[in-house]
């Protein structure tokens, strides 16, 4: 039945303001809640050598106040209105979002427009946010067991600097940054013509459009940001690195592969291959390693979806005294099996039901809709692709999965990172 399953399409209206800001409205009055997402087309991929960590530093700067919103007030305004909010940075984009009671839409648009127009890029804010980022790095990367392992393996997988360096960046580079550098970064990348604004949830369309024009309409546009090259050479050899982790209680390893970009048939096929290998209690590797061999404390895997070359990872924290190379052999054996025989009919049925289930659940919350729509609008220039996503995934055939696993995973084109505990204990 799954091929026949059709989701009612989301109501999507897209338009642009005179200054180039792309606006997407997704109206759904089920619950009196509204979500606003602003996605800026800037991530760590846009950073130059010697200037890493800027995109993420900006995520902090954006909460430091603007012409009419004092430092840290953004958060207070949202909380007091009964909302939730956050911002995140990835290789691809920097996003800011809030969910509020439906009648507070003007507040969200006022807050987002004020910082897009007039962020307070001052020496004082730069200094204290540099320190905040350093503290965050200590807390989330330096002071956590296994904290930096994904940054380390990305350096092994990618050859192009735009792809390989970490989002948190170099603290020395942040120290070198002047207020002028940061102001210039803001001018280029935080321009309305380099952003997408999505409103999802309960609102009156005409009133929402008026509010958007009122708050965003006269923010000046800027020349387009510099062109970007994220292409990668095709790898042929395995890479290996051993990394001593002072905080890790157990050894662990991580295997990573470079794979094609998002929204290609091969990417979709590998995303599905990943799900059947490591996702859920019935996945192949969970049943082999956590159950069968009982050799693993934790098994994990995911795909890192990018507009350029992307990646897929499998990792494990084995139980004490277990043989890591045996566990890796089991992983490669399963990969070879998928490469030779493809997924089973039962596995395809599972994937289809899970994809439908995921697609339906994603539509429940205004914020998750807003975020998905914003990605399609920003990366592909077409927010209505959200309505094609499920069909694209359901149309992947077992042969495509088999071939993609054979061509991309059952190869020497992979990076292996061994994490060795180096603590006192």
């Amino acid at each position: 039945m799954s091929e026949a399953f059709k989701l009612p399409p989301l109501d999507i209206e897209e338009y642009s303001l005179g200054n180039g800001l792309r606006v997407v409205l997704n109206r759904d009055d089920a619950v009196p809640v509204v979500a606003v997402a602003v996605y800026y087309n800037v991530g760590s991929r846009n950073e130059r050598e010697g200037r890493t960590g800027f995109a993420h530093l900006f995520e902090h700067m954006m909460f430091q106040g603007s012409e009419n919103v004092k430092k840290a007030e953004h958060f207070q305004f949202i909380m007091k209105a009964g909302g939730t909010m956050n911002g995140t940075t990835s290789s691809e984009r920097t996003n800011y979002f809030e969910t509020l009671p439906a009648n507070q839409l003007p507040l969200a648009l006022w807050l987002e427009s004020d910082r897009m127009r007039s962020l307070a890029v001052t020496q004082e804010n730069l200094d204290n946010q540099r320190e905040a980022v350093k503290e965050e790095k200590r807390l989330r990367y330096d002071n956590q067991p296994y904290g930096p392992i994904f940054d380390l393996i990305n350096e092994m997988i990618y050859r192009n600097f735009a792809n390989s360096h970490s989002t948190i960046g170099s603290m020395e580079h942040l120290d070198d940054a002047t207020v002028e550098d940061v102001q210039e970064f803001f001018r280029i990348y935080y321009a309305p013509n380099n952003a997408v604004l999505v409103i999802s949830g309960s609102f009156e369309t005409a009133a929402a459009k008026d509010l958007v024009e009122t708050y965003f309409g006269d923010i000046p546009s800027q020349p387009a940001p510099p062109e970007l090259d994220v292409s990668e050479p095709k790898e042929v050899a395995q890479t290996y690195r051993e990394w001593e982790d002072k905080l890790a209680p157990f050894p662990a390893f991580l295997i990573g592969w470079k794979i094609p970009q998002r929204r290609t048939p091969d990417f979709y096929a590998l995303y599905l291959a990943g799900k059947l290998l490591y996702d859920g209690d019935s996945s192949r590797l969970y049943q082999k390693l956590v159950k069968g061999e009982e050799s693993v404390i934790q098994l994990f895997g995911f795909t890192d979806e990018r507009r350029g070359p992307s990646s897929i990872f499998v990792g494990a924290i084995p139980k004490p005294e277990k043989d890591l190379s045996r566990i890796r052999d089991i992983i490669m054996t399963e990969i070879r099996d998928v490469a030779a025989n493809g997924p089973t009919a039962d596995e395809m049925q599972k994937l289809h039901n899970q994809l439908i289930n995921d697609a339906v659940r994603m539509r429940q919350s205004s914020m998750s809709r807003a975020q998905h729509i914003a990605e399609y609008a920003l990366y592909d220039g077409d927010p209505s692709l959200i309505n094609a996503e499920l069909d694209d995934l359901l149309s992947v055939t077992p042969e495509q999965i088999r071939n993609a696993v054979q061509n991309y995973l059952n190869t020497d084109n992979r990076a292996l990172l061994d994490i060795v505990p180096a603590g006192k204990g």
Partner: protein
Amino acid sequence: MTQAIRKTAPGALEPVPFHIPKPYSTRLANGLKVVILEDRRLPLVSYRLGFLAGDVNDSSDRIGVTSAMASMVTEGTVTYSSKALAEKIERLGASISASSSEDFTIIAASSLSIYSSDILELVAELIFRPTFPENELDLYKRNALENLKFQRSQPNFLANEQTARILYGEHPYSRISPSPADIEKLTRQALTDRHAELIAPNNAILIAVGDIERDEFLAELEDKFGAWAPAEQVVTPPAEPPTRAARTLTIVDRPGSAQANIVLANIAMERNNPDYFPAIVMNQVLGAGASSRVFMNLREDKGYTYGAYTRLDARRLAGDFEATAEVRTAVTGDSLHEFFYELDRIRNERVSDDELADAQNFLTGVFPIRAETQEGLTNLIVNQELYGLPDDYLQTYRENVSAVTADDVLRVANKYIWPERLAIVVVGDAGEVLPQIRKYSDQIEVFDTEGNPLELASFEADRGIPPENVSGNWELNVDFQGQAVQITMAIEQNAADISGTIETILGSGSIREGRVQGSRVHATASTEIQGQAVDFVITGAVDGDEMTGTLSTDVIPDSLAFAGKRKL
């Protein structure tokens, strides 16, 4: 657009009403209560089968059995092995899980509505035909033991363990986890017995939310669960939590810990207490969120911590009020000082109208956001049903929050927060934190991370020893990123109390709240550096005319070592 519109935050539009329909309730002949809310927004269903017993109902010779039974009920049935069951569930794109909390045990199932009957059938499988295979129980026990070991490395677990023990005494809430010996003792028979008693229709509520048709669903329930036989429920009334007469201080020693986990707690209220609404509004003002008072004070203003919160943990049988933060070791005492300041303030001063409105707006505003997804809506109904809250609880939630007054807040703050009788629990380096916080209580206990009592005297060799003379002018060199930076301190001493001034190349300030215990010095210096108020915490040890120690401040992440001499 004019500048003027941008100057101030826009007002809200007309409020949009939000109605949660009342669910339909009925009961099957065998006693199973059934609550149905048809929700046709999307083709999904969510089921919760909640049982009114949990970990607290474990008999003393079978601690941990309810939790183990719940975890294991999905690990094999007469029809399906563990693996076959996982495959069956995931092949439907569905999820089914079971777990216990202290008060309840819940089997949760959700799927696309086309698979509604399939997952109900699987839930019936867990009720009527679980087998608790020996090999799966072995794996469960080994993983649970590993997990217990891991938990002992987590300061939060250690703090919660001590807090529960002290607050609840003989009451079963005193136990937050089984011991390794409890886990070892679990047998297949014990799990089977527990299942037979607990998993009974007369002890259960089935909540169904989603794209279902009520009459069809009820017919299906009758068919699948009608023959489910009731079982007698043995309910032992829990012991009363101990009455607290004084403030106590409990330290769990983690030598070398860079941070101290602080918990201040007292017994407060059970979940269906009529003061619940004033209490959650009070707690929202005080510390529930990142715009609440303790967060604004300890994090935003003082920079002692990444987060500081208060929590009202209202459970079925009892509950507690807790204030918590994870702070740098050097500011443990200062953090307690600020916590007590905020606890006193909420008890002594009426909250302002603005603060009250902010807290109420937050609580009423996030309520529909929590009901946006079917899982969120289901969880709200599950809470209402399992705690036995009024039938119109969800429909009147926002009115009840809005009806709370500043006087109500003052009243419940006084009724449920007792600064003089708090249990203070700190997990950190006992030698470092004890001198900073011992003044808060005369009843002090120290434990190691395994829960064994330690000799208090070994952490306060200096106690009772008269304070050494530390007065005079000190010239000290601070190691700042490898560079020696000179500072001077002029200290005046009155018995164990010290005060004075501090000079640095960047600015000067005053020393306050200083204490000397034996040879140890602890003080806070308030300075102004380039127009900014900066507090330093000074921890030092004096040896004749030499002093060594550390300076710490939230402006600089790591503490700075110093050493120097008294100017003669």
